[in-house]
């Protein structure tokens, strides 16, 4: 039989990591338990609620249904990587300003999914945002303020990009 643990090397929020993991270690537990990155929350543990969403090589993934060994060689982004030097990024800022969260449990997953949405479409309509965040459950807000936050962040990010260029 192959060894009981596997060595994986991956990048998380720009930081390289090499770790020894059991094959059954879920990516979300690796992030939370082994790396101490508890910003990624665990919800349903079967890939339905979107709470544990992270970006794996830039594409959203439910980290509760990805094994850590499957992420060997991958570039992972979690909610901890969004702020820069203590400054919230525009998405985080808009979620706070527009009250796109109440209990906050779904927020890390929502932010990562929203990051992917805006990377693919910098100017989404509210309808497109609603369709796209259907992958993530929120039991508090009714999604209205989340949609407004994502649309608001998109506008700010477009302006910042124009200023920068």
């Amino acid at each position: 039989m192959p060894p009981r643990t596997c060595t994986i090397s991956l990048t998380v929020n720009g930081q390289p990591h090499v770790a020894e993991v059991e094959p059954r270690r879920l990516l979300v537990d690796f992030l939370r338990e082994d790396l101490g990155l508890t910003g990624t929350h665990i919800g349903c543990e079967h890939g339905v609620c979107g709470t544990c969403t992270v970006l794996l090589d830039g594409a959203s993934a439910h980290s509760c249904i990805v094994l850590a060994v499957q992420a060997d060689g991958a570039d992972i982004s979690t909610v901890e990587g969004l702020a820069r030097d203590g400054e919230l990024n525009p998405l985080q800022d808009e979620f706070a300003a527009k009250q796109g969260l109440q209990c906050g449990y779904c927020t890390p997953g929502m932010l990562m999914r929203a990051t992917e949405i805006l990377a693919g479409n910098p100017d989404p309509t509210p309808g497109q945002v609603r369709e796209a965040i259907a992958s993530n459950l929120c039991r508090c807000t009714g999604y209205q303020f989340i949609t407004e936050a994502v649309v608001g962040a998109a506008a700010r990010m477009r302006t910042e990009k124009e200023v920068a260029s």
Partner: protein
Amino acid sequence: MKPPPFAYAAPATLDEAVGLLTEHAEAEPRVLAGGQSLIPLMNFRLAKPGFLVDLRNVAGLTGIRRAEDEQGDVLAIGAMTTLAELERSPEVAVAAPLLAEAVGLIAHTPVRNRGTIGGSLAHADPAADLPAVALASDAELVAAGPGGSRRIPAAEFGRGPFSTALTPEEILTEVRLPVWPGGHAYVKFSRIHANFGVVGVAALAELDGDRIGRAALAVTGVAPTAIRATAAEQALAGTEAADVAATAATAARAAVAGLTPAGDLHASGPTRVDLARTYLRRGIELAVARARNER
């Protein structure tokens, strides 16, 4: 919950992967593709494989290309191609729009980013959409095993819920979809947007002048596997395309006659029959309208 312990390998070649499945047969090994169905089942401990053979490092299992073979013009899709890649592919949109439409209705982006065409077909969930697409398209599924490679017609692939013609040592490597010249439609009923369908219908219609020359229909949710609706196909062949509103209703009734699916918590048996009839009618109408460039 968390998966029970298992041994794991991510071999670099198909031969090694087949070898591992053979060598570790007593551990009831499973092939890991995208894991979007298998890992949830392992989290629930409904599946407890003692060994996982991950295909992620095996070269040559991804990609979408047009090819010519004895089936004619086909779209050959590597088994490890993700649903997101299919969704974005201009080649799929042109050569297999039925597949593109079905993929767009499967779960949400995070699942489509990782789930694969081969994984879904080999997993063979009775509510899954891709088996119906493969069946209606007369696809061929290519499997690699200890004795080499073989092609399995989609009609012979599904054996029952979570059961296929693949032997325990075989790995699905490619899906070959004949390019269809006519109209298409994938329609399904789900309790919640993007959930598994209660009933799904894959419909293809090819015109011969003003008449329906050939129709191919497959339905999920009314039998242990997706099934071809041959009675409806026969009822449609040769009818006036302009009369489709009437002929689709008749054909859909013919298709569900005699079906007695089991009910479950999602829908009773009779509800499934009613839904199948309705979605067959809608699928046929849409496929024919598209064949006539009306929609």
